[in-house]
């Protein structure tokens, strides 16, 4: 559209840029249902994912900010951290449970967030598929490794 044919812009909106002969472009709704959308995907998975992000988010605010406060802020900051400090904290089932719940919620919250990012920016079907496979593999591995470490921690390992 050249500057000459552009009507004078009045006020804050750009609505006057378009008229009957020059309509505004139509923006399709993201992931709109089409005839090609398989029936099998018609579940409420995305709604539950959306709800999970908010519920886990509230819990993570408490769990993660508490974790940061203990590890990085109180009692000398990072200076005090070492094997003995970890052994002291994981002697208590309360902190074991805290860390276990935080691990699972943070990993699932982060994996679902990155799934959304991949869906948004990876446009080729193949790229999207393999990036998500990589994400799921790394997530399962990390959650299982972290869980194993919390449950099998041995303060007298040496």
């Amino acid at each position, binding site marked *: 559209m050249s500057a000459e044919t552009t009507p004078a812009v009045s006020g804050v909106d750009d609505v006057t*840029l378009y008229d009957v002969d020059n309509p505004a*472009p139509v923006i399709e709704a993201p992931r709109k249902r089409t005839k090609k959308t398989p029936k099998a995907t018609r579940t409420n998975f995305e709604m539950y994912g959306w709800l999970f992000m908010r519920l886990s988010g509230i819990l993570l605010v408490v769990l993660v900010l508490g974790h940061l406060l203990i590890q990085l802020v109180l009692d000398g900051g990072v200076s005090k951290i070492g094997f003995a400090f970890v052994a002291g904290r994981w002697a208590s089932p309360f902190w074991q449970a805290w860390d276990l719940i935080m691990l699972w919620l943070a990993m699932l919250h982060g994996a679902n967030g990155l799934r959304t*990012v991949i869906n948004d920016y990876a446009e080729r079907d193949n790229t999207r598929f393999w990036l998500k496979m990589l994400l799921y593999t790394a997530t399962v591995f990390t959650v299982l490794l972290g869980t194993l470490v919390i449950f099998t921690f041995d303060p007298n390992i040496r």
Partner: protein
Amino acid sequence: MPAGTLYRGREGMWSWVAHRVTGVLIFFFLFVHVLDTALVRVSPEAYDNVVATYKTPIVNVMEYGLVAAILFHALNGLRVIAVDFWSKGPRYQKQMLWSVVAVWALLMAGAFYPVLQHTLRTLFGS
């Protein structure tokens, strides 16, 4: 504003961009963090060795950056929840973002010495 885009600029879009960027950064750190913590199953020395990296000045400054990213993501996440579930949320989203920024700045100022004291002490004496 360019035609045919959903990106609207201003507080709404930029808080969304910052939420994504901080989210991805925090998630990548989480992978590293679970791996380094897993070294407690190898030996106390292996774990203390990797934690020594966390006590170097550069990584200590990165920890302050991590705190910055997590604090923003946490506070803005609460704002997103308010926008979604509070009937007046969408109307006050801008005011809520600037409140998030104010609380974030306040907490970051408060966290400056506690988080960086290890580096400040080693670099500038006791």
